[in-house]
């Protein structure tokens, strides 16, 4: 089966106290564990594995690593062989490298981003349990996000120097990790340059995405909400907490997601993403957005460039 879904993001923050206030009281996560090294682990109410975000206090903002869960422990060995055969170094990190987590397969994407795969993480259950579960728990707070939904990585794209890490990552993720392409942006003469891509393993429009920019980095991680009214409520909470909103509630053309982009107190971008969008399937034809309409793809209502979206990231 291979990769099931996104597992967690390990993120650098400049001020742990401010970060915890944001991820708990604005996003609505729960602190589940603090390691001896000061790293803090958090989860969302509708997640059943122990954590989905690791916060590490550092002198720089940005992402340490991104992890996906695979179905079987043997998938790690199978994927290690496939990754190495593709020409990328991969290593097994032993169980306990991260607390409550089994062994991890570590490698870098062609862009250089640190990716991890694991099969086991401690089961703790959702906040509503499995017996006659309520639709949401009484201790829901903040925006009350359901789960970590996806991540978007900025990848170096410099056609003049022949560098396109978006295309390299897309090829690697489809050929080796068995993601499938759902949507893409193409630019340049004849649309020859793949400038952004959205890929899925589940039935959501994307589990990972790559956008081309001047340098590699972390663009955002997104948390799932049910509906447009939940998006409005989330924006109210951000107003109440003076959260820096990057892009106020709107809809993406690409993925059809209902969205807010905002920054955590260290400048790492977050998204609340609502709606099914469409049913992602391997045999669904890929949607392509062209250079002249790409901003309609990114923000469907205004369809105008928002420079911060593509050029501000950690």
């Amino acid at each position, binding site marked *: 089966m291979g990769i099931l879904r996104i597992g967690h993001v390990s993120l650098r923050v400049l*001020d742990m106290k401010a970060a915890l206030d944001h991820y708990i009281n604005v996003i609505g996560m729960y602190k589940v564990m603090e390691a001896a090294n000061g790293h803090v682990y958090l989860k969302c109410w509708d997640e059943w594995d122990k954590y989905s975000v690791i916060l590490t206090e550092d002198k720089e903002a940005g992402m340490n690593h991104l992890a996906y869960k695979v179905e079987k422990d043997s998938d790690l060995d199978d994927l290690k062989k496939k990754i190495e055969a593709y020409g990328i170094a991969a290593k097994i990190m032993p169980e306990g490298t991260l607390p409550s987590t089994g062994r991890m397969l570590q490698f870098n994407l062609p862009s250089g981003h640190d990716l991890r795969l694991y099969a086991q993480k401690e089961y703790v259950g959702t906040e509503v349990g499995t017996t006659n579960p309520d639709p949401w728990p009484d201790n829901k707070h903040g925006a009350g996000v359901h789960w970590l939904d996806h991540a978007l990585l900025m990848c170096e794209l410099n056609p*003049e120097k022949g560098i396109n890490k978006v295309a390299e990552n897309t090829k690697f993720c489809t050929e080796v990790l068995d993601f499938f392409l759902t949507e893409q942006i193409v630019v340049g003469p004849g649309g020859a340059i793949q400038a952004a891509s959205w890929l899925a393993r589940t039935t959501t429009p994307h589990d990972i995405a790559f956008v081309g920019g001047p340098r590699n980095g972390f663009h955002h991680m997104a948390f799932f909400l049910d509906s447009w009214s939940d998006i409005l409520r989330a924006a109210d909470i951000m107003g109440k907490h003076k959260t820096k909103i990057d892009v106020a509630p709107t809809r993406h053309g690409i993925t059809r997601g209902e969205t807010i982009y905002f920054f955590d107190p260290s400048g790492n971008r977050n998204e609340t993403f609502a709606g099914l969008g469409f049913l992602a399937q391997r045999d669904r034809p890929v949607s392509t957005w062209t250079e002249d309409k790409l901003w309609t793809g990114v923000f469907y209502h205004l369809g105008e460039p928002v420079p911060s979206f593509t050029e501000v990231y950690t």
Partner: protein
Amino acid sequence: MFYDSRPKFQVSVNQTGEVYACAVGESLLAGMIRLGRRGIPVGCVNGGCGVCKVKVSAGRAEKLGPISRAHVTEDEENQGFALACRFGPASDLSLDVVGKIQKAFGIGLSK
């Protein structure tokens, strides 16, 4: 413009000639945004992304919060470099904009 009684210092952006009044305890970037002015690029406004990097060429600024060392090293900070979102005025001051918003999607790279 609403009346704003807070004590302020004058901030001058050398490249654009823009001059605005920034309140004590308010960041250089927040003061600019509050007045609807332009000149310093606006990014995360939280010390992480680095697009609002400036160099104070005259006067003094005070630090209001942590900044990412990926964008301003300690040496640079001692030389007067700052992120406008995390520094406020400690006197009237002049600054040069250093941060730059770069093109993405591979478009306009040759410009």
